[in-house]
C-alpha cells in the first residue's frame, strides 16, 4: 500500500490517507509513526511538518497564503472542469482537496473516468517542500496558481488530495499536533512528554522528529522569541464544580481582552497572540513598557483596553485600580485596536491598552513550564517588583461558594468577565486545554432561537456542520440575531449535521440555508445594536447551551423579547443620567 520510495511525496499522502481511514487514535498514531520510522534528516523533518499540516515550522510564522480561489482556479485548469463546477463539487463533498482528487481518473480496475494521467517524474518530498515554501514568497496569485498547477499535473489523485488540503490549511484527517508528537515518540521509541516538551521549546515538529530519531531531544532548549502554545482553561457553569477543591486553586479575575505571550530580552520585545501571530507592532505602548523592565522573560497575560483614572477618581477607586492607576476597559473598545499593523497616534490616544501579566513561563534563560504555578507566580511577582509599570493580576483565595460569589460579583463590577481558577501545583501545559485551569463566566440570560443556516467548522470540527446562524421570531418571519460555533458535543454536532443536510433548502458556498425547524437555547454576554443581522441586534459571545427538541419554532423567543432584554440591561447605559 505504500509506494516504498521514501523520497516520494506519495508516501506522505498515503500516510495521511491511512490515518484518515482509521477511527481509533492509537491506530492513527501507528499509521503516522510507520511513515516516519524509515526516514532521517531533512526528509524526516519535512515529512513530520507535512503530517502536521504545514511545510513551515511554527516559529517561522509563515503560511503559503494561498487563497481558496487560487486553489480552485488551479484545480479547474488541471481537471478541465469550470470554476463553478469545482465550487459546487467542493461544497458537495465538504472539502476542496477531496473534491479535486475525486475529479482525477479512478484507479485502474475502478472503471472509466476522464481527466488526465499524472505526467512527468513522481513528486519528491524535497521538491514539494521547496515549492510550498516558494508559494509564500510569490506576490501574485497568478504565480501561485501556476506553481500549484505544475504540482497537480504531476500528481496522482491521492497526492492532489493532500497537496490541496495542505494548501487550504486544513488536513482534516483527525490527527492533531499531539497525535503527530505521539507518532514521533512511537516511531523512535521516545517518551511522549519529552517529545512534546522539545516541540514546545523549539517550535518545530520537524526538528523535534529529527532530534527524537537521533536521541538528541534533551539538546533542544527553550528559545525566546519562538511562539509557544497557550495553556487553556476548561469552562465551569458555577462555583459548585470547584468548591470541593478550592484549597488547591488560586483565583484571578478573568480579563476581557486578548491573550498574549510577551517575550522580552534586553530591549527586544515580541508579543504573540493565541493564533501564534506576531502582534508586537499593533501595541507600541505595551512593547515600550516591557522593554523598560529589567531582565529576560516570557510572560503570559492579557492585552486589555485601559482606562486611566484621574487623581480624583483614584481616590474613590478600589484598591486594585488605585494601585494600577486605572482599570481595564471594555472589549468593545479594544476591538478597534485589533487587526491593525500600526495604529495611528489619534487611536493610541483615544484607546490606550495595557498588558496584565498573570504567568511567567521563562526567566533569565530558564524555562519554568514544568514548575508549579506557585513557583511561576513567585517569579512573576519578583519581575513585577523590579519593573515599574508592569501590571500583574491580583490573586485571591476563597474557601466557599459565598466568597466565590462575592469575588465574581466584584470582578463583573470591575468590567471583567468572571473568574479564573488555577491549580497551585499545576505545570504550564502549552497548547492544551485541561482541568488544571478553569474559567467561570456567567451567562446572563438565554434565548430560544431557531437555526436558519449552518456552515462547516474548522480545525477539530472541520467537515462537521458546527457553525450555526440563528434567528428569533418576528411575526410570521425569522430574523437572524447571531452565529455560534460551539457548546454542543461532537456527537450532537454530527447528529445535527445529518439532520441539517436533510433540511437544507439552499447552498451558498460552504454554507447551507436550512428550513427553520431546530430550536437551540443560547446564552450570551450582552446584546448590541447591529446592522449585521436582520433583527437589528447582535448577541455578543453567544454560545449554545443545549438543544431544545422539546420546543417548536413557534415557541422560540421573539424580537420583542430581545428588545426588552436590551432595554433593561443595555440601553440605560447609553442614555445620559436623568
Amino acid at each position, binding site marked *: 500500500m505504500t509506494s516504498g520510495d521514501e523520497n516520494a511525496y506519495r508516501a506522505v499522502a498515503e500516510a495521511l490517507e491511512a490515518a484518515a481511514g482509521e477511527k481509533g487514535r492509537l491506530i492513527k498514531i501507528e499509521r503516522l509513526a510507520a511513515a516516519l520510522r524509515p526516514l532521517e534528516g531533512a526528509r524526516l523533518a519535512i515529512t513530520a511538518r507535512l503530517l502536521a499540516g504545514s511545510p513551515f515550522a511554527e516559529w517561522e510564522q509563515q503560511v503559503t497564503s494561498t487563497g481558496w480561489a487560487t486553489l480552485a482556479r488551479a484545480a479547474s485548469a488541471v481537471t478541465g472542469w469550470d470554476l*463553478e463546477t469545482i465550487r459546487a463539487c467542493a461544497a458537495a463533498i465538504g472539502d476542496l482537496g477531496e473534491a479535486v482528487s475525486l475529479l482525477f481518473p479512478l484507479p485502474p480496475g475502478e472503471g*472509466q473516468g476522464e481527466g488526465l494521467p499524472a505526467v512527468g517524474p513522481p513528486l519528491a518530498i524535497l521538491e514539494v517542500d521547496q515549492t510550498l515554501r516558494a508559494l509564500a514568497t510569490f506576490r501574485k496569485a497568478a504565480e501561485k496558481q501556476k506553481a500549484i498547477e505544475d504540482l497537480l499535473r504531476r500528481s496522482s489523485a491521492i497526492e492532489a488530495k493532500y497537496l490541496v488540503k495542505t494548501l487550504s490549511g486544513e488536513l482534516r484527517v483527525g490527527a492533531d499536533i499531539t497525535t503527530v508528537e505521539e507518532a514521533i515518540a512511537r516511531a523512535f521509541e521516545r517518551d511522549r512528554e519529552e517529545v512534546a516538551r522539545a516541540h514546545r521549546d523549539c517550535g518545530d515538529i520537524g526538528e523535534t522528529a529529527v532530534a527524537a530519531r537521533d536521541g538528541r531531544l534533551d539538546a533542544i532548549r527553550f528559545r525566546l522569541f519562538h511562539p509557544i502554545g497557550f495553556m487553556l482553561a476548561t469552562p465551569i457553569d458555577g462555583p459548585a464544580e470547584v468548591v470541593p477543591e478550592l484549597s488547591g486553586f488560586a483565583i484571578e479575575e478573568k480579563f476581557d481582552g486578548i491573550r498574549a505571550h510577551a517575550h522580552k530580552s534586553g530591549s527586544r520585545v515580541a508579543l504573540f497572540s493565541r493564533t501564534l501571530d506576531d502582534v508586537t507592532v499593533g501595541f507600541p505602548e505595551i512593547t515600550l513598557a516591557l522593554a523598560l523592565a529589567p531582565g529576560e522573560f516570557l510572560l503570559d497575560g492579557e492585552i486589555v483596553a485601559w482606562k486611566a483614572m484621574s487623581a480624583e477618581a483614584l481616590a474613590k477607586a478600589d484598591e486594585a485600580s488605585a494601585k494600577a492607576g486605572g482599570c481595564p476597559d471594555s472589549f468593545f473598545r479594544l476591538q478597534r485596536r485589533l487587526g491593525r499593523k500600526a495604529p495611528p497616534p489619534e487611536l493610541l490616544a483615544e484607546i490606550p491598552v495595557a498588558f496584565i501579566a498573570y504567568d511567567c513561563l521563562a526567566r533569565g534563560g530558564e524555562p519554568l513550564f514544568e514548575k508549579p504555578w506557585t513557583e511561576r507566580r513567585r517569579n512573576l511577582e519578583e519581575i513585577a517588583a523590579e519593573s515599574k509599570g508592569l501590571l500583574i493580576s491580583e490573586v485571591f483565595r476563597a474557601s466557599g461558594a459565598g466568597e466565590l460569589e462575592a469575588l465574581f460579583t466584584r470582578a463583573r463590577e470591575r468590567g471583567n468577565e468572571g473568574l479564573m481558577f488555577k491549580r497551585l501545583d499545576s505545570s504550564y501545559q502549552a497548547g492544551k486545554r485541561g482541568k488544571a485551569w478553569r474559567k467561570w463566566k456567567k451567562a446572563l440570560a438565554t434565548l430560544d432561537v431557531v437555526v436558519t443556516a449552518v456552515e462547516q467548522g474548522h480545525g477539530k470540527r472541520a467537515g462537521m456542520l458546527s457553525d450555526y446562524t440563528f434567528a428569533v421570531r418576528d411575526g410570521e418571519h425569522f430574523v437572524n440575531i447571531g452565529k455560534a460555533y460551539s457548546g454542543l458535543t461532537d456527537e450532537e454536532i454530527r447528529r445535527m449535521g445529518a439532520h441539517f443536510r436533510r433540511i437544507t433548502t439552499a447552498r451558498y458556498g460552504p454554507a447551507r440555508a436550512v428550513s427553520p425547524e431546530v430550536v437551540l437555547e443560547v446564552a450570551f454576554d450582552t446584546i448590541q445594536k447591529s446592522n449585521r443581522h436582520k433583527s437589528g441586534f447582535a448577541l455578543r459571545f453567544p454560545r449554545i447551551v443545549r438543544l431544545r427538541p422539546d420546543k417548536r419554532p413557534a415557541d422560540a423567543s421573539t424580537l420583542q423579547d430581545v428588545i426588552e432584554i436590551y432595554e433593561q440591561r443595555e440601553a440605560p447605559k447609553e442614555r445620559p443620567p436623568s
Partner: protein
Amino acid sequence: MDALLPFLEARPEGLYAPAFRAFLDPPAAAERAILSHAHADHAAPGHGELLATPETIALYRRRNPDWTGKATAIRYDDPFTGRGATFTLLSSGHILGGAQVFFEDGEKSLLYTGDFKRSRGRTAPQAEVRQADVLLTESTFGLPVFRFPPRGALEHRLVTACREAIDRGATPVVLAYALGKSQEAAAILAEAGIPTVLHGAAWKLLPEYESAGHRFPTSRAYETGPPMAGEALIVPPNCARTPVVQRLKSRSVIYASGWAVRAASRADFDADVLLPLSDHADFEELLEHVAAVSPRRVVTMHGYALDFARILAGRSIRARALTDRAERREEDA
C-alpha cells in the same frame, strides 16, 4: 401545454398529468397518483388511487398497512391509455418495482426517469432505455465528483469487508436503506455464504421480494436476536448511533450509499468502511442515459439539478432544472 414539459403541468402540489388526471410522485396525499417507486420521498401515504407496478403497490401496502385506497397495477411495458395520451412503465433499475414513466401521444414523447441506475443490481431488473423528445431526469449525483466504481468491484468490496470483520471476530454492520439497499446487500452476502440479520424495517418487506422470485434463506430478523459470530447485521443508516449498533463492542461498520464518496460520512455515521454502492445513477450514468435517450431537451430534478443542467448546457445539450431552488438531499442514495 407547458412549454417546458409536454404531458405535465407544474402545480403547487407537484407535477400533474391532465391526460390521466393524476399527479406524478406527488409529495403529499393526492386523489390519484402515478408512482415511480415505493420510497417514501416518492410515495407519500394516503393517496386515493395508485397507478404503479404490482411490486410498487405491494410494497406501498406493506409500508402503509392501514391504507384503503384503490390500486391499479400496471405491468412494465404495458401501455396505459388516458385522454389523448398513453404512458408506459419501464424498469428504472432503482429498486424492486421501480419504474420510469414514458409518456407519448403519437406526436411527442417524454421520459420521466424517477430514481434510476443503469448498472445491474440483483434485486431490480436492468433499467430500460426509450428514446424520447424530452427527458425529465433525476440528478441526485449530478456532479462529476460522484463517480462510482463498477458494481462488481463494489460487491466484491462489500463481501471482503464483511469477511475480514468476521475473520477477526467482529460483527460486520452494513448501513443500508431499508427498502432496496438492505435486500440488495442481503442478496450479495447470501451468494458469498454470509448469513445476515435484518432490521425489522427491511425484514418486513421480504415477502414482496419473495413474491418477485428473490430468496433469502440465510437471512433472519433482528427480533430473533442480535447477530452471532459469522453473521452480518444490516440496518438503516439512522441506526448507526443507536444501541443496536453501538453496543456491538467489536464491529466493522460499512456505510453503503452513494454519499459514501464523502470522507465526512465516516464521521457522520461512525463508519469504518465507505462503500459507494448506490441505487442511483452516478454522474457518468446520468450522462450515458442522456446520450441513450437522445432527447431534444433535458429537464433535471432532485439533488444537483442546477449544476447538472449547467454542465449539460456546457456540452451543447438543451437543459434546465425543473425548479431554480436547491433541493433537499434524499435519504436512499
